[in-house]
Each structure stands twice: as C-alpha cells, then as structure tokens.
C-alpha cells in the first residue's frame, strides 16, 4: 500500500482546504498530501419531479393542504373527545378511552402540521442551496488589540494592579461572603438529632411483640409453621403519630421457621431463635432495599434490587451479590401468652453501611 509513501518531512500547511486558517496555524500530526485530489466544486443541480411535472406538483400541493386540514380535524376531534369521553367515577375503562381519544386527536393535529410543513419544504419550496463563507472564529488582530486596550485602560483608571491591597482585600471579601449562605444549608436537617445515633437504634426493644406487616396483629409462635415466612413489624408501629415510615425503614423484619436441623447456628446465638424460628432485618446491608424474596427449599433470601443473596440457615451470610455483611439478627423469645417478642434491639445498626459504622 502507498499510505506510508508520504511520511517523513512534514509538509508546510499548504492544504488549500484549510486556507481559512493562516499558514501559521499548526497542523500537528496531520499528513497533508501534495498530490491530493482537488474539490471538484458543486455538482450540477438536479431538478425534482415536482419541478418538472406540473401534475406531480399539483399532487404535492394537494397532499400538503390535506395534511393541514387533517390537523384541524384532529384538533376538533381532541376537543370533542374531551367532552364525549368523560371519566366516569370508579371506571378505569373510561380513563383509558379518554386518554386514547384525546391523545389520538392531538396526534393527528400535531403530525398533520409536521408532515405538511416538511413535505411543503421538500417537494414544493424551491430547493435553493446556499454556500455561506466561514470566517475564523477568533477575533481579528484589530479586535483583539482593542480588547486588550480596554482592559489596560480599565486597569489604569481603576488601579486594579497598582492598588494591590485594595484588590486583595476585595478578593478576600468575595471568597468569604458566600460562606454564611452555605452555613444556612445546615438547616436542611434537624438541629437536635444526630444521624449516627439514629442509625444505630430501631424501635425494637426488650419485650416488643413481633406483629404482622401491614396489619399489626401480634404473632403467636404456635402459628409459625415450618417453612413459612412472615413480614414483620414491631407491635405499635402503626400507632405512631410521627415517624412511622422512618421507624419502619429500620425495623422491618423477616421471620422464618426452618427445620431446626437445617439451622447452622453459632454457639453464642442459639438462644436468639425459638424452635427453628429466626428473625432477621429485612433491610439489605448493601444499599437498603427490602430483602423480600424468600426461597423456601434453599432457605435463601434474595434482594430484588441488586441480587444479593443471604443464607438464612447460616445467619444470613452473603453467598452472592454486592452486599458484604450478613443481615442483622433480631434475638427473639416467647412471652407468657405465647406471642413472639424481641429479646432486645438489634445488636448492630441495620441497613446499608455508613462511614461511622464499625
């Protein structure tokens, strides 16, 4: 191939196609061939069918005005549909008809104008093509010199360079003045709460009954059959006046009963379960989605957001996915009436990791 024949001497910027740039402009690594083809100039103009055939021209004209009239029809249709297809209360079907007929009317109104205008431009307007001359983007020498002079005059008259103490004190003031505005943004969060404190505790405490989500009915240990799983909230959560969702976002728990032989329990946590019933935080330790999918026969939990998988039989250790830490376990017991209760709060913060967690 011949592509390397021209390497070697960098030819001067004689490239005619870049003549707008003065020869001093660097061409860099560009390889300018002395023997290149020249631009042949504009090809002869080719008329369109509508230029030559009056019949076709008339047809194009008919098409264009028909499209515009169709657009009017579409607008009228949309207005009529607004009235003809009211939304009957409690009827989802009526919503669908209202949406569709107003929408189709608007579509016709818009597309009629759009296609009409484009067709007009392409088929009927004279297909003039102009060639505008480009000019160098940067200002010319006179303009630049003028700009420099403006700044010099301004500098001399103001003493911006000469009076350096004034200038520097101004710069200092300009740097400092936005700081109060930044401080105001501290108001985005309450003044009397500390995030690490809040993240470290949930609503669970010694004796809180485990209740069904969302009804709030307490759960009896006897009702939890082997293989079942319950979505759990602390009893009393639904009665909270304030902060119900904030508490729920931390306190949501999954309760599962496994065959006790399947449970591979840590020695110092054997008292945290009851008869194969175990309770784990439902909040993923990755970024906090609810780990809601329980596969009974493998006793794995799957987070539907980023597919972290936890093994319930093994203290919810991570077996796949981006999460690192096991789901925190809630120590449970049974009270006198046979209801499941928490022995304490979680022994570690639940949910996603945060900087101060250790």
């Amino acid at each position: 191939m011949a592509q390397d024949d021209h390497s070697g001497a960098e030819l001067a910027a004689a490239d005619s196609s870049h003549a707008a740039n003065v020869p001093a402009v660097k061409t860099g690594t560009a390889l300018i061939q002395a023997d290149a083809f020249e631009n042949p100039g504009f090809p002869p103009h080719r008329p369109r069918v509508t230029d030559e055939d009056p019949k076709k021209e008339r047809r194009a004209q008919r098409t264009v005005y028909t499209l515009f009239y169709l657009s009017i029809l579409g607008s009228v249709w949309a207005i009529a549909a607004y009235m003809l297809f009211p939304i009957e209360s409690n009827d989802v079907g009526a919503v669908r008809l209202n949406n569709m007929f107003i929408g189709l009317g608007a579509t016709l109104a818009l597309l009629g104008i759009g296609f009409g205008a484009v067709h007009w431009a392409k088929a009927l307007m004279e297909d003039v093509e102009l060639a505008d001359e480009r000019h160098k983007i940067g200002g010319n020498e006179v303009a630049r010199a003028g700009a420099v002079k403006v700044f010099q005059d301004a500098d001399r008259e103001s003493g911006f360079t000469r009076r350096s103490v004034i200038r520097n004190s101004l710069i200092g003031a300009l740097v400092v003045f936005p700081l109060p505005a930044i401080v105001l943004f501290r108001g985005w969060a309450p003044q009397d709460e500390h995030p690490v404190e809040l993240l470290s505790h949930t609503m669970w405490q010694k004796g809180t009954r485990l209740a069904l989500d969302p009804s709030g009915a307490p759960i009896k240990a006897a009702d939890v059959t082997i293989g079942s799983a319950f979505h759990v909230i602390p009893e009393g959560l639904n009665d909270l006046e304030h902060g119900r969702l904030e508490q729920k976002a931390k306190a949501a728990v999954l309760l599962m009963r496994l065959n006790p032989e399947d449970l591979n329990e840590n020695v110092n946590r054997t008292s945290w379960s009851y008869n194969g019933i175990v309770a784990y935080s439902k909040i993923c330790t990755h970024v906090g989605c609810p780990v809601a999918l329980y596969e009974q026969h493998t006793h794995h939990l799957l987070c539907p957001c980023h597919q972290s998988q936890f093994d319930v039989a093994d203290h919810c250790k991570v077996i796949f996915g981006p999460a690192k830490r096991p789901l925190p376990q809630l120590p449970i017991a049974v009270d006198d009436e046979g209801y499941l209760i928490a022995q304490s709060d979680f022994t570690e913060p639940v949910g996603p990791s945060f900087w101060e967690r250790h």
Partner: protein
Amino acid sequence: MSTATPTAPQRRSATAAASNYIDERTSLSVFVKELGRKAFPDHWSFLLGEVALFSFVVVLITGTFLTFFFQASMAEVEYDGSYVPLKGVEMSVAMASTLDISFDIRGGLFVRQMHHWGALLFVAAIGLHMLRVFFTGAFRKPRELNWVIGFTMFILAMGEGFTGYSLPDDLLSGNGLRIIDGMIKGIPLIGTWTSFLLFGGEFPGTAIVGRLYSLHILLLPALLVALVAVHLLFVVVHKHTHYAAPGRTQQNAVGPPILPIYAAKAGGFFFIVFGVLALIASMFTINPIWNYGPYDPSPVSAGTQPDWYIGFADGALRLIPPGWEFVWLDRTWSFNILVPLIALGLFILLVVSYPFIEAFVTGDKREHHIADRPRNAPTRTAIGAAGVTFYAGLWAAASSDILATHFRLTMEGVIHALQAVVLIGPFIAYFIAKRVCLALQKKDREIVLHGYESGRIVKLPGGEFIEVHQPLDEYDRWKLVSYETNQPLMLRPNDRGKITVAQKIRAGMSRWFFEDRIAPVTKGELEASHHSSQH
C-alpha cells in the same frame, strides 16, 4: 416622478407597518438580514440534536401543565379518588395528586404520559446526538466547549429525569430513593451527614419530595434552558459542520437557507416529534404508579427497573463481587459502592475530556468544519465502540434478574457474563471496530482506484469472463478521497535540546492513534493504476 421624496405618502400594508413599528424599537431587521438566509447544512444525523431540543420543549410544555395539579407534599392523606383499589389507603399528598392527575382530570393521564415518554426520549436523543458528534469528530476545534456544554446538559437531563421519577412518591420511586440514600451513606467522611441533610433527617422523612420538586421544576430546568441557549448560540457562531461532498470545504457552510426551507423543515419536525410523543402517550402506559401503590419501606416487587438512563449506574452496583467492604481505622469503607461511583466518574470524565485528549495527541490547531466519516478516524471510532460496549454492559446489568428469568439462566451466570462484557468487551469491541474501519478504508481505495462493480459480465475473445468495473465520476470520488490521515509524532528535541515528558507521552499516544492508517488515494496513484490496467 422617480424623485419620490422620503416624505411622500405611500400606501403601506399592515404587515409592513407592523414590521416598521417593531424594527424602529428593536433593530430586528439587522438580525433578520444577518440570520434569515444563513445556510444550514442538512443531514439525517443532524436531526438527533433537534429531537433532543424538541422533546425538551415538549417536556417543558407538558410539565408546566402538570405543575398546576401536582402537590409536592409528603403529608399523609387517605386516598379518596376514582381509582377503587386504592380507596382508603394512606399515602402522601404527592402520590394522591399524581393519582388524581391520572384518574380524575380529563386528559391528565395523557399529559403525564407524554411528559414521561418525552423525558425518556430527551435523554436518549442527547445520548445519540453525542454519539453522532463523537464519531464524526464534530467536537474538534472550534467546538470543544460546545461538547462540554452538551455533556453538562446530558448530566442535567439525567438529574431532571431522576428527580421527576421520584416525585409521585410511589413504591418504585421510593425504593429508587432508598438506593440513592444507601449509596450516599457509603461515601467516606461525608456520606452519613449528606444523606441526613438531603432527606431532612432519617430516610425517608417528609422533606425529600418537596426538595426534589424545587430542583425538578426550578433549578435544573433553568440551568438547562440557559445552556440550551448557549449551545445554540455557539452553533450560530461556529456555523454547523457539514459532511465532505463536492463543493463543500472548510471555508463554507452549504445548505438550504434558514428562511424558508430550514424553518419549515425544522418547525415541521418539531410537530412530528411532538406528534409521535402524543401517539405513544395515547397508546402506551408508562409508570403505572397505581399498580405499585404508595411508598412503604417494607414491600418491594421482583424485577423492578429504573428508567433506562439510570440503568448503567444501577448495573454498575450489581456487578460488584461479594465482599468489597472493609472496616479500617475504625471506619467502614464501602468499596462495593465506591468502586462503581469512581468507575462511572472516571468514565464520564473521559467522555467530557476526549476532545482535549485528541487535540493534545494531534497537536492540530486548525479549525475543522467538515465532519469525518467514522471509518476515516479508525482509532477514535474504536475508542467510541469500546466506550459504548462498556456502557452497554453496565446497562444490561441493570436487567440482570430479568435476563436470568426470561432466558432461564442462573443469576450468577448472567452477572459473571456481564462482568466479562464490562471488563473485556471494550477491548474486543475496540479491536473489531478498528479492523472494520481499516477494511472499509481499503475498500474505498479499491473503489477509487478500480471503479465500482457494474454488474455487467463480459466474455473476452479468449473465453475469459470479467466483470466490467465502472470508474467513479469526480463527484462520487471526492467523497472517498477527501480526508486527511495523521502520522505518529516524530520525537524531536525542543529549542533547548530537550525531549520533554509531555512530548514523549504525546509521541506514544500518537503512535497508538495513528500507527495503523490508510491514506486516501492521490491523483498520481489513480493515474498509475490506470496505466497498469491498460497494459
């Protein structure tokens, strides 16, 4: 008779009078004269930016309508609207008002759907427009700054999308916010407090929807409108690029005049974009929040997906292998969150700085107004293909669970395969794209030198069959030969007799960029090939 004085009374039409009235107060005629007949180069690929602009306008129009009905409050109410299955359910005012827009206001659902579809199209069109600009080298001098502005708008558009997506306070968007909250908390040093400030206390709090609303309808749109204005101003200042064709040079801009043809085409195209969005909105449901219900931190449905443009970030989170989190110095280092954040940060940094990198490598200080055919810049095209593959791998990962269930694959298998796509795929794509570009350039040379296959088979007197090759006319030929190649930089000592480190880097990079190259056919070569074929 011909000496009509300026004071001579003349009958003037109402239009002329009105024009005169306005011009005498605005000097508008200067603008019309200056801009009205500007040539605007025409090509289908230039429409991508217009789609972005026009869908933004549609989103502004529909969004304004929605603000008259939406209430950005997280106060709890009992829903009492037309949608029966949710009657009596506790939800935020934001969710309830979104349901009212959908079920109690005629045409409300239509406008809401057009707004959401328009937003998806807006981000998609910006992405495609950026790819067009990248692959044709339209970011080169003098347009580097406009690339940066366009890139900024891409980021802002994604921000607009995400803030808007979160406003209805439904189950799906609430889970999206929870993921954002979890990611923020994983940032060292500032994460916990940043989350606390953003949500006004503990997640979810009662502040976030109102705050996102301020961003969504005030701050971000204002920035976008301002940047759109600057972006278009630059298009006027630079004049649009055009593709190489006979008569088009670096010194001219060739195309139909703004008035009337371009105005009619672009104006019509606005209505087409608007109309297509209206058609989609009237026929296809999007974001049916009534199926998801109000936000509750406990339930979640399987197979949830973010809007498409957030997919690459969500996918990046999914691809991290287990165990990338450590406690060190009594603090938690969540590399399972930091690595995606840093990787995506580096990726977009590379995207925004590419024009400057290429300018550094070539050292070319000229203005470039002719857009490249992608094949004529093989290394750039290959880099683009690698970037697209990287993005596509991350994006696909956001649907890893859906891929697994639809194609009956294991979740782990899909994740491992996509990890390979993201890490190895870019190199394969780079290699293939570069070879394809070089092969296409060779084919162009072949056609210029020996003509194109005419399909006419001739039997020679000796019994041999040949296909007649038809030479190109000079206009077709120009499209195939009018490009420049670059050669690797030759390292030379500077004035002080030194070879600087920057020069060495530049030489190494230019070798990488330009070592493999196919030069365009020259006049001499064509002549030589004609000679040889005659003998």
